[in-house]
């Protein structure tokens, strides 16, 4: 098993001057660019690097980017395979973005527990 990195860049954020990762469509598009479908099936583990200057990581983007993986792998296996790194962020922003990611996971968990609203647009 190899540990690899997925670098989310500032271009993946919505809008030219935006410091937010937001939007389902944007998340889905980046999922395609990062070939996450193939990554879900391999044996590697990944560390997702959140870029410096990020001020929010919205659940819409998180779900667009990772809901398919969570659905395919299950939450436990997803968390084992994909870890989030906040190291590039300024120290005070780390717990805030971590809180955003946790909210995204809570929303994904709700969807997995029988609410299939996301399936209609993912």
């Amino acid at each position, binding site marked *: 098993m190899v540990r690899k990195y997925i670098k989310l860049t500032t271009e993946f954020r919505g809008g030219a001057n935006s410091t937010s990762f937001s939007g389902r469509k944007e998340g889905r598009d980046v999922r395609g660019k990062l070939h996450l479908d193939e990554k879900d099936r391999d044996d590697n583990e990944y560390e997702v690097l959140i870029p410096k200057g990020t001020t929010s990581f919205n659940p819409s983007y998180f779900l667009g980017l990772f809901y398919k993986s969570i659905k395919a792998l299950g939450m436990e296996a997803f968390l084992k395979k994909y870890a989030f790194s906040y190291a590039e962020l300024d120290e005070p922003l780390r717990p*805030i973005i971590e809180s955003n990611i946790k909210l995204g996971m809570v929303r994904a968990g709700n969807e997995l527990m029988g609410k299939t609203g996301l399936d209609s647009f993912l």
Partner: protein
Amino acid sequence: MMIDISFEPLYYFLLKSVLGIKMDLGVSVGDIIACLSILFAIYQFRRQMSLSRKEQMENQKETWFLNVIVLPQLPEIKAFYKELLRKISGQRRTLRNFRGTNVMRVERLAKYKDANLQMVSNFFLYLESLIESYDSSIANKMRNVDYDLQDVCSELLDTYNDETTDTDVALKILNSERVIISLLNKGLKRI
């Protein structure tokens, strides 16, 4: 067969009577029509009963949706959007007039965004779970409004420095409120 002599006249009388019975098995068109009319009447009666039972159940469902979800939630929804509008307008002003370092300003921005995400998410999770028990397709649409509003809140704070976007705040937030009210109305109309 041995028959008691005293019963012999009665026996022959009964035998003659039974053999003498002639059954008229001919069925007229009138009989068929009468029969079909009765069957149709029974069918209509049962159908009417079933329809009125269904109508009664739908009325109960509509009353429940109106009394349990729509009416008690309307003031909550109004208050939620009013508070969100007040908060975001205030946050934009605070960020614009912020006197600290850039790092501190960015931290403040991120904190505001996180607080707004939590506020919107908590409100909608409650509302969506209520609606889910009534109609999951409306709840799904509501979930989309939820995510869109979270994004709008972040976007409105990203543009805090641009005073020309101040009018967008009320416009975009109240548009979300309009969509929610219209979804609840649709819920009433579809039943």
